[in-house]
């Protein structure tokens, strides 16, 4: 038994070292990479993956396929921008307010919509996104189609305003990690189990005492709040927003990392984002001058290929591949599953006693 405990501890230590090394690489990238272009691609990866994780909570975990996440992101961006420019609020406080406001709007609007199932929810999310965009285009308070710009000025952490891309890189990385840990926490919580039960069978979930509407509203509120946070980050980074931010195509773009990476996994959007966004940026930089649209075309081809041949996404494929077996056994020294279970059981017994 003692050997088993040792093996499990060694495995956990190896796993932490591996994850720590990956994190270290990301922390050190701005120290060695000075090209603003490359750093920009990383910032893009960070916020798009975060947005995709927000989608994944609702789409992958709960099975409610939203196609309106660009709208929550846009609303978050608008709420924080308007607070900064019109009320002179501190950006960090405005971010907090934007998250709460967008969460509330999403909860109130989608509460009656959650009697709808399957494709109907998707349709409402599209209609909601388009309605919001049209509303902003028609509202002079929101700056109509010409958008809102944030003031430029001296670098300041308090105003979240920098000339260099490095601070945005670190803030983006922290945002990504924070949301990842939050999603991981939700996945393992009561809410996570409830959401996955609802995804598999809503009637069965209701029969065992899970209130589907309550949990779906919780999921949409959290998801919209995270998307609003991404919107705030985007607005502070680009320093200019317009209603184009909320077009349908942007919502689709926010889903792709999750579906390509593997929507059933919390890590799916991270993997998908790391692969898809550099690919898209490379194509945009090298080919879009000659052939506009080529980057989105490739995006679509990758999406269709993955869905057709690897329906569980890249991560789903990796989870059942020989590569994972090799890394688990040879590199991380993962003990057999029986040993892991035995140790886990022993630990729980100790708790109960």
């Amino acid at each position: 038994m003692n050997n088993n405990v040792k093996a499990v501890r060694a495995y956990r230590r190896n796993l932490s070292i591996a994850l720590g090394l990956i994190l270290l690489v990301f922390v050190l990238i701005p120290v060695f990479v000075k090209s603003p272009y490359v750093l920009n691609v990383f910032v893009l990866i960070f916020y798009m993956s975060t947005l995709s994780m927000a989608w994944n909570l609702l789409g992958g975990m709960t099975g409610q396929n939203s196609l309106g996440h660009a709208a929550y992101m846009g609303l978050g961006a608008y709420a924080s921008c308007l607070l900064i420019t019109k009320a002179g609020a501190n950006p960090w406080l405005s971010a907090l307010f934007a998250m709460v406001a967008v969460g509330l709007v999403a909860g109130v609007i989608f509460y009656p919509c959650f009697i709808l199932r399957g494709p109907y929810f998707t349709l409402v999310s599209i209609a909601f996104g388009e309605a919001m965009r049209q509303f902003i285009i028609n509202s002079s308070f929101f700056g109509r189609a010409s958008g809102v710009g944030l003031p430029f000025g001296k670098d300041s952490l308090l105003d979240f305003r920098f000339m260099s891309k490095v601070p945005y890189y670190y803030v983006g990385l922290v945002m990504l990690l924070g949301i990842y840990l939050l999603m991981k926490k939700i996945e393992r919580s009561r809410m996570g189990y409830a959401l996955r039960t609802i995804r598999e069978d809503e009637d069965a979930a209701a029969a065992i005492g899970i209130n589907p509407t309550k949990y779906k509203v919780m999921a949409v509120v959290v998801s919209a709040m995270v998307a609003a946070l991404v919107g705030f980050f985007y607005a502070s980074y680009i320093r200019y927003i317009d209603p184009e931010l909320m077009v349908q195509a942007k919502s689709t773009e926010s889903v792709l990392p999750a579906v390509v990476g593997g929507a059933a996994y919390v890590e799916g959007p991270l993997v998908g984002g790391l692969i898809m966004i550099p690919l898209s940026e490379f194509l945009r930089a090298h080919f879009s001058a000659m052939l506009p649209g080529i980057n989105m075309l490739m995006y679509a081809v990758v999406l269709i290929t993955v869905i057709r041949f690897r329906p569980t996404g890249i991560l789903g494929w990796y989870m059942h591949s020989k590569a994972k077996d090799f890394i688990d056994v040879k590199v991380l020294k993962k003990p057999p599953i029986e040993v892991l279970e035995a140790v886990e059981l022993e630990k729980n017994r100790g708790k109960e006693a």
Partner: protein
Amino acid sequence: MSIFLQACVNGLLIGGFYSLMGMGQNVIFGVMKIVNFCHGEMLMVGMYLTLLLSTHLGLDPYACVPLVAILMFLLGALIQHTLITPSLRTNSFTNLLFLTVGMGMLLSNLALVLFGSEYRTIPTSYSQTYITLGPVNLSLPRLISFGVLIVISIALFAFLKYTTTGKQIRAVSQNPVGAEVVGINAKRIYILTYGLGTALAGVAGALLTGFYTIFPTAGSAFGFRALIVVVVGGLGSIPGAFFAGIFLGILETMVALFISPSYSDLIVFVTFIVILVVRQLIIIRRK
């Protein structure tokens, strides 16, 4: 009063296109229970096909309609056979949804790569011809298009109602397992339906070219309105889709006339959400 009548007629003429798109979407959704998110892009492909046929073969846009229908049917059948049917087995609604979304992205960006983002038109000798009927002015191409699509709608209704294949399609949409039990080849019906739906969208595109500009994202507005038509008109109902499309067209022009043209999209989307939720509430009450 004459402005009101004119707006009504314009709404009717554009609503016919929403009807035609809605019918195609309705057939696909009814049979496979998947929302075809590239339906609008299929309309756009139909427009570019008409453009190619009319510039290279010198055909009149309306003479292209049967050719476009056949080509679009083949395209739809190909997509169904190679992509959608194999993915139906995974039984994942998310995957099927994003397969059609990806198809839409593929088609609209392919059009952007091949033809660029310029707005194109197909000039005809009669494109600026108007017919005056009392207080109302009717554009000739719009009138011809509307006439053609009425004929197509009636033909589609009759096809689904009276032919053996049409009956098979309805059988699969009502109960796929039962249909297979009585010897209907469901896979063949899937290919047929998706081809039929795509062909209807392509024909709508071909009919639009007489008076509408052609550009890579021309289809998206029609694609989403087709979904509204399906939901409002009721699943599996061809007459329902027809009248819902006309209703939507007239609603849009009325909002443009009485409130403001820039609000018409907003009102359409909000109306859609309200109708969807109210309809669902009524269904729940009845239970």
